[in-house]
C-alpha cells in the first residue's frame, strides 16, 4: 500500500483516514510473535505461552515470556521481547512505588492504566517508536478477586475474562470463548489453557516449542508463580490426549501418551 508511505514514517503523523500507521505496524510486530493466552476464572488467573524454541543450543527455560511484576501480579507478553522486558521493569517500578506510597498492593486496574499510559506516551512523538509488544496482566487478591487486563501498543487497557495475543490469537480466542470460565477453578482452567496452546500451535511452520504455564489465585494464596511440575505434567498430558482427534497424522504426532 504505497499510499501509506507519506503518512507512516512517524508516530506523530495521522493519515487522511485518521490512522496512525506506526501504531498499526507495531501491532503487526505482535502478530508475528508466538501466542500467549490468559484466562480469568472463579478463583484466579492462568497464563499460557507458546514459547518457540528457535535453536537447540538454547538453555531450557531461557527467554521467559512470563514475568512477575509484584507478588500478586503476573505478566505474559507477545511481540518484541526486548520491548516487553523493558515494560516489565516499568510495571515493576509502578507497582513498587504504589506499595511504598500507599501501604497496600496495587489494584490491577490502576497498574494496567499506569503502564498503558506509559505505552501510549510512545505513540505521540516522532523521536521515538511505539513499543512492539502487547502484554497481559493478571492478579488475584482478596479485595477484588481475580483480575485480567491486556495492553496493546496503542496504549489501551481493557479488562477481560479471557484473551489471546500473538500469531494464533484468533484461533485461541475461538477456543477460549468455548470455556465457561466463570464457573471453573484454576486447576480446571490450567488444563484447558495447555490444551488451547497445543491446539493453536502450528506444527508445520514452527517446530519445537516449550509451554510456559503460570497462575495466580486462591490455589497459590495470591502469589503469582509458575505452575508446579506435577500440575504442569498433568496439564500437558491432558492437552496432548485431548487434541488427539484420532486423525492419522495427529495420532502419530502426539499419542505417545
Amino acid at each position, binding site marked *: 500500500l504505497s499510499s501509506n508511505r507519506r503518512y507512516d514514517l512517524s508516530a506523530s503523523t495521522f493519515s487522511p483516514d485518521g490512522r496512525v500507521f506506526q501504531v498499526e505496524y507495531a501491532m503487526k510486530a505482535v502478530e508475528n510473535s508466538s501466542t500467549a493466552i490468559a484466562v480469568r476464572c472463579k478463583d484466579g488467573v492462568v497464563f499460557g505461552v507458546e514459547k518457540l524454541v528457535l535453536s537447540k543450543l538454547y538453555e531450557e527455560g531461557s527467554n521467559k515470556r512470563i514475568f512477575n511484576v509484584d507478588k500478586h501480579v503476573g505478566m505474559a507478553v507477545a511481540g518484541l521481547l526486548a520491548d516487553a522486558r523493558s515494560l516489565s521493569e516499568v510495571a515493576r517500578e509502578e507497582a513498587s512505588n504504589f506499595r*511504598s*506510597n*500507599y*501501604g*497496600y498492593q496495587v*489494584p490491577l486496574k*490502576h497498574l494496567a492504566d499506569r503502564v498503558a499510559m506509559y505505552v501510549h506516551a510512545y505513540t505521540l512523538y516522532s523521536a521515538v517508536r511505539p513499543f512492539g509488544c502487547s502484554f497481559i496482566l493478571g492478579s488475584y487478591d482478596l479485595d477484588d478477586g481475580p483480575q485480567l487486563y491486556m495492553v496493546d501498543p496503542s496504549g489501551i487497557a481493557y479488562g477481560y475474562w479471557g484473551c489471546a495475543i500473538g500469531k494464533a490469537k484468533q484461533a485461541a480466542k475461538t477456543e477460549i470463548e468455548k470455556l465457561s470460565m466463570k464457573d471453573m477453578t484454576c486447576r480446571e482452567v490450567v488444563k484447558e489453557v495447555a490444551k488451547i496452546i497445543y491446539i493453536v500451535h502450528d506444527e508445520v511452520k514452527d517446530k519445537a516449542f516449550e509451554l510456559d504455564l503460570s497462575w495466580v489465585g486462591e490455589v497459590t494464596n495470591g502469589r503469582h508463580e509458575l505452575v508446579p511440575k506435577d500440575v504442569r505434567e498433568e496439564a500437558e498430558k491432558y492437552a496432548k490426549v485431548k487434541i488427539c482427534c484420532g486423525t492419522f497424522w495427529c495420532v502419530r504426532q502426539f499419542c505417545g501418551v
Partner: protein
Amino acid sequence: MEHDAAVRGVSTGTTIMAVTFDGGVIIGSDSRATRGGEEVSSKTINKLVQVHQRIFCCMAGSLADAQAVLKTASFQLNLHSVQMEAPPRVIAAASLLRKLCYHNKDELQAGFITAGWDPQKGPQVYVVSLGGMLISQPFTIAGSGSTYIYGYTDAKYRPHMTREEGLQFVTNALALAMGRDNVSGGVAHLVVITEEGAEHVVIPGNKLPKFHDE
C-alpha cells in the same frame, strides 16, 4: 517563650488518643492551645482534622509543621481516592503521612495519630511518630497529657469493646489527662467513625467525669 517551648520538648500541650472498638474507631482530643505553657491562647480548638469521610487525624509536635504536612497529605489522599474510584484506605492516609515525615525528618517536628474505617480492613488506628515510623495499634495515646494516663489506658483497655464502652474509655482517659496536665484542657472532642460515617461528639468541661475532684 516559643523558643523555650521548642527546646523543652517536642510534645505540644495536648492530649490525643484513638481506640478501636467493635465496628469502628473513636478518636479524641482536648481543646486547649497554649503559648509557652503560660497563657491559654484558645480554649476550644478542634485538633481532630478530617482528611476524608471516614478518616481523621490528630496532630502532635509543632502545630505549624503538622498542619503543613496534613494539608499536603490530604491533597495526595484525595487525588489517590479519585484515581482509585473508591474511598481511600486508612493505611493509605497513614502511609502518605509517614512518607512526608520520614523524608523530611531533618526539617519537621510532627507526629500523627490516624484513625478511620475502610471496607477492606474495617476499623484501624495508626501512629506516625516524629521520625517517620508507622505502626498499627488497637489503641494509642499521644501528646504531653498522655504521660498521665498510660497506666489507666493499659489497665482499662479491652479488645472488642462496644461503642458505649469505647466512648466511656476515651472520655475517662481524656478527663484524667486534662485534670493533671496544665497544658491540656477545655472540652473533649470525640469523633466516632463507623461504616455509617463519622459522628462528632463534644463534651464540655463541666460535663466531663470527675475523679475525686472535690
